[in-house]
């Protein structure tokens, strides 16, 4: 009995000493900053920074090979913390948010054909360039929803993608997944957006969508500097917004493409009812 206790005990002690020595000798030196960085990063492993996950990004930060402002979901707070840990000074980037640039739901926008197949916008886009006549309209099959790591996207009952402004971190994954670039990043504090992505001229747009930008430039005339034209498509000139003038432009937009997304949505269809027409 005693012999067994002594022999096993000494064996245990020996092994413990060996392990302790091995731990010292073969220790992998980790920069303590790396662990600290991993704590402050968002932890979603979304990959928006371009690295395979948060720990890879932390390693790259410590190595000095990555820019500190790449953690999109973390936003400015994370950037500030990264800056303290790495002891560097950075200008805080503007937080961004994804915007769906399409209002052409099933009733408003013409379908090119009935689509039966894989529930994936990118696969559908390969069949005759998508089941919607508009070349820029939201296909509503939810590739963005599947890829959003934060559950900030959903397809509404009208068949359009919708962004949950509270959940969206502006990581931009949906933007890269969408085959038609319907989604785009915009400054999070702006809430008036042009919700159309059709590159076509007005005459063509009128053929297939009731809520598409026809390139009439009325918004530019009403609120100069707030809007810019890219081809036949109006865009908000982010950073140069004037709320009152833009509210005016929003009113005057004949196809109601300019929308205030902070306000509760009006129902998408606005066709006068029978009573309205007769009165």
């Amino acid at each position, binding site marked *: 009995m005693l012999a067994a206790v002594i022999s096993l005990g000494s064996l245990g002690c020996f092994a413990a000493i060996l392990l302790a020595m091995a731990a010292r000798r073969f220790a992998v030196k980790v920069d303590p900053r790396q662990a600290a960085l991993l704590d402050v990063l968002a932890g979603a492993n979304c990959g928006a920074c371009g690295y395979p996950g948060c720990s890879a990004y932390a390693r790259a930060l410590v190595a000095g090979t990555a820019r500190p402002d790449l953690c999109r979901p973390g936003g400015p707070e994370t950037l500030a913390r990264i800056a303290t840990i790495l002891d560097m000074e950075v200008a805080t980037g503007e937080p961004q948010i994804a915007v769906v640039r399409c209002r052409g739901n099933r009733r408003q926008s013409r379908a090119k*054909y009935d689509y039966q*197949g894989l529930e994936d916008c*990118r*696969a559908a886009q*390969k069949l*005759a360039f998508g089941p919607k006549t508009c070349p820029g309209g939201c296909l509503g099959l939810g590739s963005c929803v599947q890829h959003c790591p934060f559950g900030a996207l959903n397809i509404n009952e009208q068949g359009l993608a919708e962004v949950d402004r509270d959940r969206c971190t502006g990581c931009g994954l949906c933007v890269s997944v969408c085959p038609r670039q319907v989604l785009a990043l915009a400054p999070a504090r702006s809430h008036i957006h042009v919700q159309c992505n059709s590159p076509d001229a007005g005459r063509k747009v009128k053929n297939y969508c009731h809520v598409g930008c026809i390139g009439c430039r009325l918004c530019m005339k009403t609120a100069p500097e707030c809007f810019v034209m890219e081809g036949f498509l109006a865009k908000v000139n982010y950073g140069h917004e004037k709320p009152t003038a833009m509210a005016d432009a929003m009113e005057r937009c004949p196809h109601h493409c300019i929308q205030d997304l902070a306000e509760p949505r009006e129902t998408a269809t606005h066709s006068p009812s029978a009573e309205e027409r007769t009165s």
Partner: protein
Amino acid sequence: MKRRSFPGGTHPPQHKSATADTPSEICPLPPELVIPLAQHVGAPAVACVNAGQRVGRGQVVGKPNGFVSVPVHASTSGLVVAVEPRPHPCGAELPAVVLQPDGDDVWAEEYLTQSFHVLTTETMLERIREAGVVGMGGAAFPTHVKLDPPHGKTIDTAIVNAVECEPWLTADRRVLLEQRDKVLTGLEVLQKISGARQMWIGLEDNQTDVAALLAPHCKQRGVGIAVMPAKYPQGAERQLIYAITGRRVPTRGLPMDVGVLVQNIGTVAALTDAVTRARPLIERMVTISGPNVVRPRNLRVRIGTPIAHLLKHCGLREEAAKVLLGGPMMGTAQHTLAVPVLRGTSGVLAFRRQDITAPAGGSCLRCGRCVAACPMHLLPTFIADYARRDALDLAERFAARNCIECGSCSFVCPAGIPLVQSIRYAKGAILARRRST
């Protein structure tokens, strides 16, 4: 005669009797021809006529742009109304020459008749290119490129593909029956250009009557007739080569790597016109069929005829719910009937609402039917699953890029999973990723 086949494949209902024994008709000229400048694999032609210009039948309206490119010709004489984007079977609007026929149908120039025996290979290839001959089985690859293999590659076997394994289609059969002399001359031209020692015509065993008719002529010319069991996709290039010669085309290779050249039967007939008469490819045999067509038949159609015109000529029972260009297995559904017949269009199929069954859309049962059907020995259900999960590395490791998109897997799947669509998506994504890195 041989009876060989390939492993895998499937047996879709054939539906060929609707048009197989009805003689072809000449399709009347439509009020407007839409001749796209992109009708072939490779660089689209460049328009060389302007709106308001009068053109003769067979006049070049689009010049080739590069080696892998062919000219495009006016299918009849008339007035060029516009050169503008028009609906194209690929689904986009692409530049096309819009032609208003004047009804006279006069050739732009007098054409010769010349025996090909006196011509050099170079002259023949030049004429083939100028005539705009492309693969008429569907892929529309420029024939002069295929007939002119790079140095170091020799062709010892030429196969004429008259298999027509797609259900409904009988255009190749009608070409064989009605343009036999053209086909036979074309065979000799093909042999002279390619230098092949062995020639084969590949047919399915539902065409034994044609095989019997051809047999004496072929024997005289030393051309073998290979009759293979009717199985889809027997007409696919790799499967056909394997069935006839027993050779396997390497996965990233071309038939020329194993010394084989495959040409569609319609292309061979077009070679005759191109070489002996220097006449361009402006007309082709098209099967108009499907349960929605009142008088299904084969039509000899001018390139650029809108399919609405063909369907009107053959009559529709009701408004078409679905119209396919090509066969039901690999053809493409069209969203407008304004799209024209191209050089590679083998058929127009119209279906009614009740003929279209919505896919079941279930989950994989692990039954393995797609694996058994795949003629390329792939695991379609795995690749499709990886494609859905964006696991492109895995899809690539499972050889997604070897898929020939024949659609056998989707056809046999009892759960109605869009397998071939998923694999096609994976292929595109893998290539796109390669290009970007």
